[in-house]
């Protein structure tokens, strides 16, 4: 079993979404594609929503990326932003923000990984499989940026 990774990669990619809700599957699709191209450099985890216990996993990495679909139109079709620890709190138990997960990793496990959010713009949130045309284009741009610019930059600073 590979639940607690001892043989971990340099980067943890947490893909958030639901491939049964059209463009909400952007995060998962992004993880599928980059895990193929980046191989052992990246560990991918798939989530419907972030949960408190994800702080344990996050605390084991130096670099973490949270990838999710965005309801908002984005200039480039995607957007990468640094993500900082902050104690946001949602009313439910099973939907936490990336900032809160980082906050818990810091407070409970004394670990503050360098973290980013990768937002990819989607449009269709209906029931069903498969991305829409625009979402597919945005995904390609996000992957291209990630492979050509983001990963080399991380490797350089590592």
């Amino acid at each position, binding site marked *: 079993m590979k639940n607690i990774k001892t043989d971990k990669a340099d980067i943890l990619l947490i893909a958030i979404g639901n491939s049964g809700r059209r463009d909400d599957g952007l995060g998962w699709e992004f993880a599928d594609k980059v895990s193929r191209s980046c191989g052992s450099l990246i560990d991918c985890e798939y989530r419907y929503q972030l949960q408190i216990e994800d702080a*344990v996993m996050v605390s084991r990495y130096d670099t973490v990326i949270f990838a999710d679909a965005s309801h908002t139109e984005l200039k480039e079709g995607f957007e990468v932003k640094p993500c900082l620890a902050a104690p946001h709190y949602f*009313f439910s*138990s099973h939907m936490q923000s990336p900032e809160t997960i980082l906050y818990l990793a810091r407070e409970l496990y004394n670990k503050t990984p360098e973290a980013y959010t990768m937002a990819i713009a989607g449009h269709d949130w209906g029931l069903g499989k498969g991305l829409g045309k625009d979402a597919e284009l945005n995904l390609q741009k996000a992957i291209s940026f990630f492979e050509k610019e983001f990963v080399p930059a991380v490797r350089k600073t590592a």
Partner: protein
Amino acid sequence: MNRKITIDPVTRVEGHGRVTIHLDEYGQVKDSFFHIVEFRGFERFIQGHPYWEAPVLVQRLCGICPVSHHLAAAKAIDQIVGIDPKDLSPTATKLRRLMHFGQVFQSHALHFFYLASPDLLFGVDAPVEKRNVVAVAVENRELAIKGITMRKFGQEVIKAVAGKKIHGILAVPGGVHKTLTENEREYFLDGKNIENIDTMIEWSQAMVEFMKNYHEQHRKFLDDFAFFPSGHLGMVNKQGGLDLYDGLLRAVDSEGNRILDDISTDLYQDYFSEAVAQWSYMKFPYLKKVGRENGWNRVGPLARMNVCDFITTPLAEKARQEFIAFTGKRVNNSTMYSHWARLIEVLHCAEEIKILLHDPELMGNDLVRKGTPRSKGIGIIEAPRGTLTHHYEVDEKGMITKCNLIVSTTHNNDAMNAAVKWVANNVISRKGHITDGMLNQVEVAIRAYDPCLSCATQAMGKMPLKAELYNYNGELIDEKYKNG
């Protein structure tokens, strides 16, 4: 002037609900309601699907309780293929039990550490920024780490047998589709990769002790807060011991008199009916022979402590004895003791998981059995939140023609409304000013039942919970939303 209070959303529960409290011109509570306002109709759209899809489809009712729905449906579908619980292979039964104990363990840990502990640690009228698990993590680091680790352990058990923590699949009609390997078993025993099952038992005992100490310091609060008499329903084995996976249905009234005497789960329809109300999508189950007004029962950890004669594992049984000794009564009708009862069940599940992990039959290869097909199957289990019923009927082609789900939270519908009424009458009534702390106490009362409103109504989508305050003219004069 008459006023109406609305709490919407009710926080730290699973699902979307709303509380309304109606006051008269003197500020006295006239009435209160806990509304469930989401609806999906799972029972209807599952019709027309082949029977073998049911255990997989019904998991999508919820991201919190998928295992419970998977197993209750599986027990029902076993009967469609002619297999009663006693005919299932020992390996299949034990693997399903392991999955179930893993689910109850992680679900109860989630509820206690993530949802309920802020109320207990910081008080029911603590400022809003304290009333969440993040504050618990900061101020009670060790407790938070234990809570997270315990929940994760339960999830890992589920993943080991079902492939995934959420929406994994173990059961197939008449059995299971995989066994547990030696490596998977050792993962939970050797403590090399995760804290092992002995640590889980030790921590579970510590949590029961925590609750006992809390009880010593806050006995009046636990005794009095949201106290009301009611019936209690749960499942027991043939000897009267607590059984979360399979057994007989037993109910007692508020004094401990048996009102449902260990009936076979197949017969539930003869004893239970469901009422509806105009103001909620959630139904109101009740015992026919007692009637709609008094025939409703609480379900879940407190009810299970009240109906069983003993617990089958030694440490949890010792904890139950102490629980009964403290309350001094055969039946405990105090809402807040649910938290204590829940922790006793955490300990019971940890003990059961250990017993199963040491049982060589868990790794057997006799996985699936078949019998003579039938047209009806009824599966009942004790889910974390209480008695859960799945009932399916199929046509000659095996297509589902009827589905009836009585979800645990539905049984607690009347109880949660009674708890809200208690808070309305004892905390809010005749107070000139309604504070945030007062409204939080409404939520504390509901939260003790750990409701899963998404299961109870089979709803989907965003699910915040909402409080409204109405005056005697029926005009909304105050409201509160909790979206995060």
